[in-house]
Each structure stands twice: as C-alpha cells, then as structure tokens.
C-alpha cells in the first residue's frame, strides 16, 4: 500500500508500485486535469507538484511519491476559485486546444512560488519543458508575467509566509 497526500488529502493505493503517478491520479483517483502527451517526460502535459516541485508524472512511479505531497491542477484552483495564475490565463485568453495547459499552469505556478519576479529568460527556462503544439507561447509568457505582477498573487504569498511563520 502506498500512501501520499493528494491535494491536501491523505490517500492510499494498492496499484502496481511501478505505475506512473499520472495514471494513478487520473484513473484511480479520477482527477483528469493532468494529461498524457508523450510518456517520456518530454512534453510536460503531465506536470504536477511533488512537494512543491514541478514534476513529470508520466515517468514517476507511484512508489517514489510515498509520503510526499502531490498537488494537481484541481488542487491549485477551480472555476469558482481561480488561482492567480489561472486568472491570468483566463484574462489573456491563453488556451487554444487547451490540452497542454494544465501542465503549463503547474509549471508556471511552481516558477512563481519560488521566483515571484521572473525575467523573460527565467520564464523560458522554467517553461520550455512544456510543449504547446498550438503555439500559445507568447500568450503563456504574457500571462505568467502578468500573474507575477498581480496583487492577488502577492497577497497569497504573504498569507503563505504568515502561515509559515505561525507554524
């Protein structure tokens, strides 16, 4: 039995420990936001946060995340409660086919959590692991820069910092 935290909730699975986390999250826990694009860690469509780090889950055996904390796009925000990165995505009307966008957003959110004021080069470096076949790159970059600048994002960071201090 492998136990880990999924979007804040402790879960267990008896799936084959070699099963990539992507398939456990999608098919066992029915969270379909993360997508399958290549199965080789090359395209980023499967990106989730593992202990806050953007990770390619199509090549991550579920055994390797025992005891860790996983956040998916569903844990980041929802249509009723958009994360500031998601709000920026909507404001800039970023998605086209949309299939890569969960992965893009997870990579962007991880970048901004550790680097709240990225340069364009920082964004390139953090996001170039995520392929967008529809070519939304200019809109994605604009949304990331705008999310970085947004007040809501800064406020959220402050809250998180306060919570950390109190803990």
């Amino acid at each position: 039995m492998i136990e880990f935290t999924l979007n804040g909730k402790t879960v267990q699975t008896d799936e084959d420990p070699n099963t990539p986390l992507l398939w456990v999250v999608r098919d066992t826990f029915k969270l379909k936001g993360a997508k399958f694009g290549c199965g080789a860690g090359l395209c980023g469509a499967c990106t989730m946060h593992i202990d806050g780090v953007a990770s390619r889950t199509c090549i991550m055996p579920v055994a390797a995340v025992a005891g860790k904390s996983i956040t998916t796009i569903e844990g980041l925000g929802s249509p009723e409660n958009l994360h500031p990165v998601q709000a920026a995505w909507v404001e800039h009307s970023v998605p086209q086919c949309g299939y890569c966008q969960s992965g893009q957003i997870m990579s962007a959110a991880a970048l901004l959590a550790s680097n709240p004021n990225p340069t364009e080069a920082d964004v390139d470096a953090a996001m170039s692991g995520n392929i967008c076949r529809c070519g939304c790159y200019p809109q994605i970059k604009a949304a990331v820069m705008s999310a970085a600048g947004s007040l809501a994002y800064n406020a959220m960071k402050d809250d998180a910092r306060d919570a950390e201090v109190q803990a």
Partner: protein
Amino acid sequence: MNSMNMSRRRFLQASGIVGGGLVIGFSLTGCSTPKLPVENVAGSFLPNAFIQITPDNVIRFYCPRDEMGQGVTTGLGTLVGEELDVDPRHLDIAFAGPHEAYNNPDIGMQITGGSTSIHAHYTPLRQAAANTRRVLLDAAARDLGVARSSLTTEDGHIVSGGERHPYGKFVATAAKLEVPEDAPMKKATEFRYIGKDRGRLDAVAKSTGTAVYGIDIDVPGMHYAVVRRSPVAGARLKSVDKSAAASMPGVTDVVEISSGVAVVAEKYWQAKTAAARLEPRWEEVPLDKVDTATVKKDYRAAMTGDEGLTKDERGDIEAALSSASESIDNEYWAPYLAHAPMEPMSAVINIKDGQAELWAGTQGPAAAQGLVSRFADIAPENVKVHNTYLGGGFGRRATLTHVIEITQIAKATNKPIHLLWSREDDIRNGVYRPASLMRIKAGIDDKGVVSAWQAKRVGGNITPETLKNMMPGLFPGLGNGTINFMVGISNDLYKGWIVDGSSVEGLGEDYDFPNMQVNHATVEHGVPLTFWRSVGHSFTAFAKESMMDELAEKAGQDPIAFRLANTKDNPKLNNVIRVAGEHMKKMTPRPGRFLGFAAHSSFKTSVAEIAEISVDNGQINVHKVTCVVDCGLAINPDIVKTQMSSAIMFGLTAALYGELDLENGAIKQGNFNDYPMLRMNAAPQVDVVIIDSKEHPTGVGEPGLPPIAPAVANAVYAATGQRLRSLPLKLEA
C-alpha cells in the same frame, strides 16, 4: 465564473438527466429522417437544429463544428449570440452529434477543416438565430398582449415597458408559432459582439483542467486497450504468440484486429506493459524496401521524365521561357510530416444490447458514427457519438482508424473499452503530410515582370487516401468491395487523368504570370497520407515564395516592389503585400539581424509575413514575425491574431525541425526527442496586423502557416548568402 458550466448543470437538472447522458428523442419534421441528437427537455423550444431554449431560460447552442483550439465554439457562439441577442458567455454550448443538419455548408459533409467554419456558417447560423429571436418576439407579444413593435430584446430577455422577461417564459407559445425563414439580421453597425476582442468561451474550463477530452472519459466497467501495429504501414499480422501478454497481471483479452493485435486489461499500465511483451510478425509489403533515399530517387525520376498531367495553364509557357530575359530553374524538397497533436488518438466505446456509444474528439462525428455502425454491425440510429474537445486536430482527427480499432476490440471482448495510442503510435502509425519534390522554371521579361512560370510537383495524393478513410464511415452500408473499387478508381484517376488539387494548390494561383503551367506526377510508395494544416500550401508556398525572392533579386528589385508588380490581378494579396511592405520599410533590425519576406493566399485568405532572424553557429533563431492578414470581417480580432500566431508556430516547427525518415518502410522517429517541437525558448514574438475589411469572413486556422518557411528561408539568404531549398532548413557548416 464560467457560465457555460453553470448553465449546463441547470440544463441537466431541468431535463432530469443525471450523469450527462444524452437522450435522442426529438424529431424536427416527424418524417423518416433520423432524429436530431439533441437533449430531450420537457417544454423546451427547438426552432432549428442549433438552438434550444428551456422554460428555465437555458439557451443551448449545438455547435456544428469541432473545437480543436481554433476557437470555433467562441466564433460560432458569437454569431448566434449576436443575432439571438444573448451574450455569448451566457450560451450553454454543446458539441453537435452526428446529423446532416450539422453538415459543413462549404463541404457538404459533417467535417470541420479547410478553415471553412466561419466562412460557411456566417450567414446561415446568423439567420437561424435571427429567425429564433423573431419568433420569440412574436410569442412574447402574444403572451404579454402587446404589439411586437413595442418589444426589444436584451441578453436572453424580452424587454417590455420597464420589465425584463426571460426568453424561457415564452417558449410554450413560441413552439406553436411558425418560425420565419428570413427574419432581418443586424446591420454590421449594430454589432455588439461580432468584431470585438472578447475572451474565449472555453478559457476557464481549459485553465482549470475541467475541459473534457476523449482521453478523459470514464464509463463503468471500462477496460483499457493498447494495440501493437506494424511498423510498416499496411502490413497485416502474420503471427503472434499471445501468451506472452495474456498471462500478464490484469490482462483479460488479447485479440487480433485489422490493424494488428490488441491487449485489453483492467488498467492502462497493465495493458501497456503486457503489449510490449508481444513479438508480432508482419507480412511483407512493397513499402518494406523503401527508405527516404528511395523516395527521393523515385521522385527525381518522375520529375525529369515526361510523365505527368497539367493542372493549370495559360499562355505559351515554352515560348515564354525561351524568350525570357533572365530565367531560373530550381528544385525544392519537403519531407513527410506528422501532426503530433498533444492528445494522442484516443476513444471510449460502450457496445451493449445492440446499442453503441462512442466518445472521441473528432473532426468528423458522422464518419465516426458510420464506422462504429459498420464495424459493430449496428444501424447508425443506434450509435450515439459524443464529440469532446480535441487536444489538437490539424487535420489528423479527420482520419478515424482508431475508431475502427476500438469498435473491433469492443466487439471481440464484449467490454466497454478505452483505447489510447502512445506518442510513438501517433508518430509511427499515423497518417502524414505528403513528401514533395517541386521544380519551378521561371523567367522574367525586360521590365522585371515574371513572364513565365512552370511548376511541377512530384509526390503522393491525399484525396484517394482520404476517400479510403472516410467512405467506410460516411457510407456504412456500402460494401468493402464497392469502396475498394471506388478508391481504386480514384487512385487511377489521379495517377493518369486528373490532378488532385491538394497536391499542387498554391503553386500557380497568386501571381499574374501571363504564361503559366502547373504540372504534377504521382509517385506513391504506400505511406498513408492526409490533410495537414494548410495541406498542399504547406509545401508549395515554400517553393513559390523562395523562387519569387530569387527572381526579385535577378530583376534587381526589392521583394515587396517585385511582388506588387506581379499582383495587378490580385488586389487582395496586393494590398496585404503593400501594407506589409510599409511595416517592413520602418523596420531597423539591429546588427546581426536579417529580414525575410513571403506572401501567400490560401483558403480565401491572404497573408504576408516578415521574419526577423539571426544565425548563430549554424543555428537559425527566429526573433520576431510580423504578419499581415486579410480574412474579411474579423469576427473576433484576438482569435484571428492567435490563430495566425498558432499557424506560424506550427509552420516554424516544420521549417526548423520537421522531418520523418523512412527506414525499411518504417518511420524512424518516435517521440519528441527525435521529432522535436518548437518550445518557448525558441518561439518568436509575433505581431499581427489585421486588414480592416467588411467582406464576408474567410478562414484563419491555416493561412498563417504557408508563408513562414519561405520568409525564414529568405531571411537566411540575407544573413548568410545561402539559398536553402530543402525543408527542414539546415545551414551548411
């Protein structure tokens, strides 16, 4: 707050349907035509196939075209919202099921592609919405006991005196009235939504992981299937030891299907792991002996030989060529390409008690229905097809071999099935953009005008392949023998009698060319072919615009002036070139940066592009692309711009990296390590200028693609003095 999701929940509650299943049960005419695949909601008003209004004022739009990122649900939703007087954000948009009422008016079938959706539906959909608004006004006038002239409408409401009444209040009366056919539509000056920059209606769903794609569907009892297919297209299974997979954990079935052998298991990972253990053997086919070098050799032989057909000609090409002041003779090469949409092919099917239900993102839901009908031997009216968002189409999702596969697997195993192709399956077992060898002989007269243009293309044709893939679905009752016969005839037709337009489109249409000839010779090796974003234009524009650049230099003219002089008969393209030229004149690229220009018309839209590049250690870096487009009236300028940018990025991937190699008939590449895609760090800045036009809107999904490869190649010449005449663009050391 995404009102699309909210109103869908209300809609389902109103109809008493739990779980999202659709019920077929509403017939427009009551005669023997198939019933419309719309939701059966008590008391709702269905004035046409596209619009349904419930007593609770949920206003549903059955979108007839498939959303693959091109923004069609937003674009067509905007047309409906405009004439119906409903904010498009307040529409509940559903994907239409299979029915001839949802045929593409430009194509005559239920297919999304060819950059036709807005062009085809602009008038009929607005008319349907205007008719609906008119009958609602009539109904409201009756119910409220006032003159219709005293009423107005506002965002899904009738306004009478100071009071707002939801449309839904009047649907019972509306359903009894005759729906007019020609209610007046708005004048362009009255447009509230058309022509405005408005956010995409699917942005929230696609930014929260809540948009549903074919791969996301779950049905109870669903098993997962992975298929092993021949590395060489068309080779049938000779033998396989099924026990290697059958004994693996979770595996329930190992079945032979027409494309290979399928492993079915309780979990995807179990099916994938087990399938990898099979060692199938395949029959020999002629394609086994074909490498990329074979293709090039055979194309060359046909190029220099006499065979071929003429597609277009005017004037006296031979005389014009021999009397030209200057002439150039060049060959150009474009390789086989895969589409590589981010979502590999997938589908879910449930066949039970003589009924079938299929979920898949497709560019042709009617063809999907036909294929399930044919291969499950179930009448089409008992086959439900649910279209989903497509994780990329680009032409790939009009070929539905995965629907055939899943139907055969479900029939053989008697289980609900989820079929998923891997990325390797997608790149190696798919359908491809044809490879092309092109030759252009052109001459200029003493005034520097192109007086002679003779172009010949050698390669395979997509139309017979398209027929082979589409006919079984479109005509489920037609026997295999008949279909093969008809496909065979079309093959012969295109080889010996007429030219497949898709093979040469773009080579000769744009410029004045008083003496012109476009020729074609078919050479095929058995690689499956299909539409790929911008089709023939994706390779012809490269040859044509590279040659025009060389001719301009020979004529001693700048690329803009030269093209302007040769488009006197093409005012739309001439204007786009002129405007782009004005932008280009103002550009002052810094040292080490160089500009290249190209212009091309496709799908009724004219586009010019200026690429700004640098070359660094043999690597081509594209920093910025300026794009000028005339697509008639821009329904949503922001979407026009993002579609131009999208096509440019797609074309740039092809221009810089795109190449599939054949080795012993098999495609060598398999994933994004050896079939690279443009990534953010290599993506240029894109600026789009939309020509202000009130003309009937034309396509924007594809036209941005053809000019990018030649624009970059022409910039590379400016930077290095090297003329690159092969794709992908590779500099010599």
